[in-house]
């Protein structure tokens, strides 16, 4: 899985490409935590548009980042969810705490 970070004025955009499972969750964690530790951005937009698979390891990894963002007073927004990933997130209770936007621009705008 590739994790691409783009620093924007309103927050950090995280574009995921590939599969997010127990194996790749390590990369997801390390890349995002390194950036968050710089304290330059507090908000996170996670773009799932090019993520082809996710299981409960993804839920755990996302919740871990959500807690960090929230502790720093930031917000987390999702975009580009496929029906399958949406279903996994619903089962994990993520969609009751994290807002979903249809695309990256709308997600960034919602952070203003």
């Amino acid at each position: 899985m590739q994790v691409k970070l783009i620093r924007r004025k309103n927050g950090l955009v995280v574009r995921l490409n590939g599969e997010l499972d127990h194996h790749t969750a390590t990369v997801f964690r390390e890349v995002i935590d390194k950036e968050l530790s710089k304290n330059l951005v507090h908000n996170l937009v996670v773009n799932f548009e090019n993520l082809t698979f996710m299981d409960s390891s993804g839920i755990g990894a996302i919740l871990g980042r959500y807690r960090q963002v929230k502790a720093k007073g930031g917000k987390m927004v999702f975009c580009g969810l496929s029906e399958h990933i949406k279903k996994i997130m619903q089962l994990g209770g993520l969609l009751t705490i994290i807002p979903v936007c249809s695309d990256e621009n709308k997600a960034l705008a919602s952070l203003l």
Partner: protein
Amino acid sequence: MNYMKMEIPARSENESFVRVVVAAFAARLDPTLEELNEVKTAVSEAVTNCIIHAYDNIEEGIIMITVSLDGNKLSLEIEDYGKGIMDIEQAREPLYTEKPELERAGMGFSIMENFMDELFVESVPGKGTRVTMIRTLGKKHTWDSH
């Protein structure tokens, strides 16, 4: 009845490989994309449990995966020879995890239950665990053709 068996060491990089192999074998039942995604997710949860819980990330552990096709019924058996589950009922509870420090969501068994028609868990502490999951696939296809 057609079947296939595979044996892998409990290494996390094998998770995606198992998903692909199971999906390829199940594809002959003409499942929908949604069904395939759900089967792949259930397999992924079971294999991840073996790696993290049964073998505590010790990569030498062995995982056996058996997939059987009977009509349009898919049976999956994921077996390990690891530490076993002391309390299966508790392990199956949503959000329960033994490893919160590893950012585990505690959703593995819930997802397996949700995505498969039937889920059986047998375990002997100190000996290992066998998870059996059954799902009838290609239902839509059958309805369409009748």
